[in-house]
């Protein structure tokens, strides 16, 4: 602990393996995570049909597709949010037994483990087929959105940790980036979930807004697809917006989405590095909370960057990449269960609505600027009409 105080852990520590504690004390927590994960997702190797994922798929069938998209996919249901939701419900209705808590602390082992294993998923070369300008637009707007969010956060007086999570989620077009940023920013669980709900909530607003706004411009369907990917993001929300404008726009959104996806690590690395440098420059400023507690660049993040470079060099071929991603699904399912159990309604409410207002303002500015830039690019012939 800070201030030279020797903690109980340090007194009894023998090696780094001491952080695993004893099997007897961690078993109840590990079993809790396992059962929540297994009943939330269709995990590789587990033939359990009674999962939350299957329930949502059945409900998707009942509701029917909305612009060719399943309703719960539009809400971003996946292997992270399902166990998180189940853990959250269990924790808030029944509480969390004390005997689970040692085992649940494995979330802090699972987070760097899962993030490193995620690296082979982002191969830059997959986006080369899009051409220079679409990739430049994806990368430019990602960095611009992250920067604008962090700067506007001061105006809206949003806690810098929550603003960092919003910046990560909104700029990459994937709320999971916020979860990945959680251990790096040292954000509270309530701030992360509050920010993620805001990013998904704004995604719903923007997927309804963008087709109408894009209608004012005479874009080819191709670039309505591109505008949906960059301006809305969040996977199926972007597809909903694009298909609302036309079938071809929807198909092109699928084509362009790889450009947003493969550069995602650059988005959360940018947010972390920007906030880390800010903290180093202002070590005694009480307003600077993001990355507080991280003294030097984390070694495991360096390992992630090395693995990402190796992935870009096509070291992880199929099916090894697929097998590693199956491990990621297991890892994040277990971690999300522990995170869900840790959060109360009060934690989420305590983060307030300022973050959501920041998300809306930044998101609307992004859409307006994006449509203007695409219009200029089409007129100038940079994007082929």
């Amino acid at each position, binding site marked *: *602990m*800070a201030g030279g105080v020797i*903690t109980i*852990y*340090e007194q009894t*520590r023998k090696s*780094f*393996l*001491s*952080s*695993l504690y004893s099997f007897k004390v961690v078993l109840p*927590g590990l079993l809790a995570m396992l059962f929540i994960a297994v009943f939330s997702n269709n995990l590789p190797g587990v033939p359990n049909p009674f999962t939350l994922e299957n329930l949502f798929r059945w409900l998707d069938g009942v509701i029917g597709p909305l612009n060719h998209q399943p309703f719960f996919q539009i809400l971003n249901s996946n292997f992270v949010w399902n166990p998180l939701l189940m853990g959250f419900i269990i*924790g*808030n209705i029944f*509480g*969390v037994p*004390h*005997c689970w*808590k*040692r085992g*649940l*602390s494995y*979330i*802090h*082992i*699972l*987070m*760097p*483990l*899962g993030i*490193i*294993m995620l690296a*082979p998923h982002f191969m830059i070369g997959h986006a080369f087929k899009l051409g220079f300008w679409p990739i430049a637009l994806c990368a430019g707007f990602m960095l611009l959105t992250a920067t604008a969010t962090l700067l506007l956060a001061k105006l809206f007086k949003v806690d810098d940790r929550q603003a960092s999570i919003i910046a990560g989620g909104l700029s990459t077009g994937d709320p999971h980036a916020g979860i990945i940023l959680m*251990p790096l920013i040292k954000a509270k*669980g309530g701030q992360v979930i509050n920010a993620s709900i805001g990013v998904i909530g704004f995604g719903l607003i923007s997927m309804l807004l963008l087709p109408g706004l894009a209608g004012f411009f005479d874009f080819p369907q191709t670039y309505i697809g591109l505008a949906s990917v960059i301006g809305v993001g969040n996977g199926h929300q972007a597809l909903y917006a694009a298909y609302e404008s036309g079938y071809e726009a929807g198909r092109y959104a699928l084509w362009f989405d790889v450009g947003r996806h493969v550069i995602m690590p650059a988005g959360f690395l940018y947010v972390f590095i920007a906030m880390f440098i800010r903290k180093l420059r202002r070590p005694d400023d009480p307003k600077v909370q993001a990355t507080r*507690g991280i003294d030097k660049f*984390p*070694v*495991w993040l360096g*390992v992630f960057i090395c*693995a990402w470079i190796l992935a870009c060099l096509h*070291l*992880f*071929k199929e*099916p*090894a990449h697929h*097998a*590693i991603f199956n*491990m990621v699904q297991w890892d994040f399912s277990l971690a999300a269960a*522990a995170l869900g*159990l*840790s*959060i*109360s309604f*009060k*934690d989420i409410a*305590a983060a307030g609505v300022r973050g959501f207002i920041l998300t809306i303002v930044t998101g609307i500015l992004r859409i307006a600027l994006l449509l203007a830039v695409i219009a200029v690019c089409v007129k100038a012939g940079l994007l082929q009409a």
Partner: protein
Amino acid sequence: MGTKSHTVDDKGFDYMANTGREEKDRDTCGMLLAIIIMVFLTLSQYLGWY
């Protein structure tokens, strides 16, 4: 239900607190496990085990 009751056990151990030596050790465990899994899965493909 108090906020902390979700994460703190009867001995005062907070499972969401992650600081100091304990944090570094957890990071090391996660990092080593990630390297082991990725190297094993990648090498076993290169060696033709699957």
